[in-house]
């Protein structure tokens, strides 16, 4: 048994042990629930009760799925990772052929008998798992040959998703895969080289972008060039954040949020609502909660008994973090606007389900022993 339990007060340790026996991690679970509660509080401020109820049901379902996922033996994930990956690739290919167009890109798949969903979401889980599965079989640090194959495994779905085009998700998926390679111990000079290469490729990438994507980059660089059009979102979100000040305007009193100046206030831009209504204090609390979850998950990664467990846990954590970072950086004007929600806070079920499945796997890996 992990020795940290002994340092805890007796009652806490008992509760932890009980949770442990149902394959849940107390710290992680509490962190996630706290974030979810925070998100619901803010959602209540900017959206109606119907929306709130909807989100409650979705998150409840997602949490239930997480609990189920945590019960399954981690070897199951190890064994089925390749199959999940292949299935994901096939579905992405299907999207390219028969996908539904929404907002100018093909992302959705309408399969009979199933709710409409984005196959790219599967890849956010499947790619970290499959890379972890692949490197688990190999010696670490990985050899060049293995790294190349791993990169191909990452590039294939990322490329398909980018072609939809959904650059944001593609980067998330690629990031999840690359995180595994990084955690597997790839040498620092390779990383440095890759970084330099990426920087050098930027001008080339510029020409590969769609017009609307270039527009987003230009808007990011200078939102004031079209404050009422393309720059509206970012100008208004920065205004919401900046006007919040230290303590905020109070829940329900955020004029930017409540008077519709802030677009997407319940979804991608909800951090701006937190900033406006609860101020720097509110933002700091949320960042701290995320830090708790991430720290705990990374700690759990180091405690995992197998290479697969470590790599999978670590990379799922990094995907989660990437969501947090990209979303907040985007809303406060440090990154171009890409459609990435704030994990477990933004209104919407899809990403919550994906991320909580990820944490379900993390808990499964951590709470099952002897594999």
């Amino acid at each position, binding site marked *: 048994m992990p020795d940290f339990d002994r340092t805890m007060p007796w009652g806490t340790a008992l509760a932890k042990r009980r949770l442990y026996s149902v394959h849940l991690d107390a710290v992680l679970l509490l962190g996630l629930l706290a974030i979810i509660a925070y998100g619901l509080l803010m959602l209540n401020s900017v959206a109606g009760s119907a929306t709130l109820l909807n989100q409650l049901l979705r998150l409840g379902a997602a949490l239930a799925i997480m609990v189920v996922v945590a019960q399954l033996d981690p070897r199951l994930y190890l064994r089925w990772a390749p199959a999940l990956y292949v299935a994901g690739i096939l579905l992405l290919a299907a999207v390219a052929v028969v996908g539904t167009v929404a907002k100018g890109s093909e992302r959705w798949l309408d399969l009979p008998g199933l709710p409409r969903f984005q196959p790219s979401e599967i890849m956010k889980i499947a790619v970290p798992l499959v890379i972890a599965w692949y490197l688990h079989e190999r010696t*670490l640090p990985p050899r060049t040959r293995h790294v190349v194959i791993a990169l191909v495994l990452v590039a294939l779905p990322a490329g398909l998703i980018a072609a939809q085009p959904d650059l944001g998700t593609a980067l998330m998926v690629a990031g999840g895969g690359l995180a595994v390679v*990084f955690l597997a111990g790839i040498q620092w000079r390779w990383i440095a080289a890759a970084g330099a290469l990426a920087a050098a490729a930027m001008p080339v990438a510029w020409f590969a972008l769609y017009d609307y994507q270039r527009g987003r980059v230009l808007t990011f660089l200078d939102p004031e060039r079209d404050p009422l059009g393309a720059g509206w979102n970012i100008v208004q979100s920065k*205004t919401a954040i900046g006007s919040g000040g230290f303590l905020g305007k109070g829940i329900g009193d955020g004029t930017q949020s409540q008077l519709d100046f802030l677009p997407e206030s319940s979804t991608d831009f909800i951090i701006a609502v937190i900033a406006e209504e609860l101020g720097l204090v509110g933002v700091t609390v949320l960042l701290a909660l995320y830090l708790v979850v991430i720290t705990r998950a990374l700690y759990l990664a180091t405690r995992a008994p197998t290479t697969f467990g470590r790599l999978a846990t670590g990379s799922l954590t990094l995907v989660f973090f990437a969501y947090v970072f990209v979303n907040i950086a985007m809303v*406060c004007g440090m990154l171009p606007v890409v459609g990435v929600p704030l994990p477990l806070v933004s209104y919407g079920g899809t990403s919550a389900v994906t991320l909580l499945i990820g944490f379900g796997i993390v808990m499964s890996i951590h709470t099952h022993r002897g594999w």
Partner: protein
Amino acid sequence: MAPNGSNKATNIKNLERERKAFVSRAVATFAILVGALLLLFARMVWLMVYQHDEYRTRSDENRIQTVPILPPRGLIYDRDGDLLADNQPAFSIVVVTEHAGDVDATLSAVAALVDITAAHRAAFRERLAKKRRPLQEIPLKVRVDPRERAVIEVNRHRLPGVAIAPTSLRAYRHGPHMAHAVGSVRRIAEADVATLDASLYSASEFIGKRGVEAFYERSLHGRPGWRKIEVDAHGVERREISRRPPVPGQNLVLHLDAGLQFEAVAALGQRRGAVVAIDPKSGGILALVSNPSYDPNLFVAGLDAAQFAELSGSRDTPLLNRATQGLYAPGSTFKPVVGLAALALGLTDWERTYHDRGEFRLPGQRRVYRDWSWRPGNAGGQGVINLRAAVYRSSNTYFYELGSRMAVDALQEFTAQFGYGRVLALDVADTDPGVLPDSEWKRGMRGEPWYRGDTVNLAIGQGDLLATPLQLATMASILANRGRVVAPRMLKSSDGRLAEFEGGTLAAGNGGHVEGLSAADWEEMAASMVDVVHLGNQGYRRNGIAWFHIGQDIEYTMAGKSGTAQVVGIPQGAEYDDELLDEYHRKHAWFIAFAPAEDPQIALAVLVENGGGGSSVAGPVARAVLDAYLLPKMQAAPPAAVAEAQPAREVVDT
């Protein structure tokens, strides 16, 4: 199985090494993540602490709008409280273009429901091109009827940015009858915007143009209030934060007598011309008519280009205020002033006689100056006459002779006291000072010296002398007052202080006196003018010149003077219509009068353009206006003497 065992051994060793390697990577990752979170935190601190004030301001600018509140325009009443200019609530279809998106599509959608003319569209476009506040409602159609209003309200969900807005519109109950006196408000034009105080007119769509509406614009307009409101991103008001009520414009009471004005309009009938009637005691303008007129309400509703072109291009010039801007030679109405000038200058007296032979020549000159009575084979003029007879017979020859002996600059100086060549009116908009020529004027305008012949012409009110009906009414008032000068004015009273005047009130402006004459001179001149009307049954060529037309059945003493003014000829080579030439080249008919002569309560000037004879055409108009003003007063309190002298009024058709 050495290779196996060694393999297994390496594997175990590798596993431990891998775990350690992973831990070190995890630590590095953790450091990066914390660094990244700190970066986000720093960014938040930058926005929320260091740039807080700027963004706070921005967010307030987003949500708080200051909406000006239109001040109610001051009402205008006549002397008896008849409401001449009123504000009426009305509803307009307005468009907020920011919400409408495609303006063309919106206009088409509205046009499918209610009648939207090309003029509405044009005016809307024009308004759209001007400066405006963000989210300002631009009127598309003012004054919609209840059915149109309902149709728009019902279909609002299909018409983003379209709304029904309550407004207040100026309403002129008496329409064309008061147009030239009261003026009207019109839509603020691009040209006005440069000169207007933007803050004062922030809520206004209209500005007073012409007449009282123009002169008292500052007092009538009032000061706008404002409402600070919180709006959402769609411009929809959520709540009011604060409000300052507008300061309503001043209500004005005018000297105008609406009843008298209508009588004057009726008396003129279809003829082009003007009537200005003044209370000589106060200078208050009782009636100010210019015919033809226009409906001032048209300018409120909005004229399209064709309607405006029709008004402004008409040969009858309905937009011209003949009473204050029409310039005409005063003709014989000027003779009393010339006679008084000659008395003041010592060039004649009441006893001196002159033999009027029907024509006059300056010594050594061939040009013949003819009397009005002159016909081919001159019948001999008015005979031997004194100044009084020269006035009531309107002898040209007598005044030619006076003029020939008079220094023009002395005449000019004397005449200016009656308001010629300058604006005596205190608060009448758009008044023309006319022309009172003297030697200096002629040198400047014509580059010629002043000839004696010019003075001869001037002495019968012709030549370069030009004046407005308002100026002639002023002259009549001064004659009525026996020399006491009164400045004409529209305003009788107001609620409070007026921005138009220093000191806040309309200064008296009266009290001056025409100099150089005795009281007897003034009385005699008034008597001469009474003779013009009342002296009858004296035989051919002995009666007062207007007696036959207006003097035979009169119940009060009326002093008057007729005049006919020559019309400036069409320039040589100019194209003209033969049919029209006749009418438009006839002489203008004048009549000035005051009554009752012994204690004048009203003085007036009547002009009938191209009317022909002053006594026969303008005289009856003057009589009708005086009757309308005086008879009701006399019936209310009949002066014993008058009632006794003329118990029954005989109606004579002339």
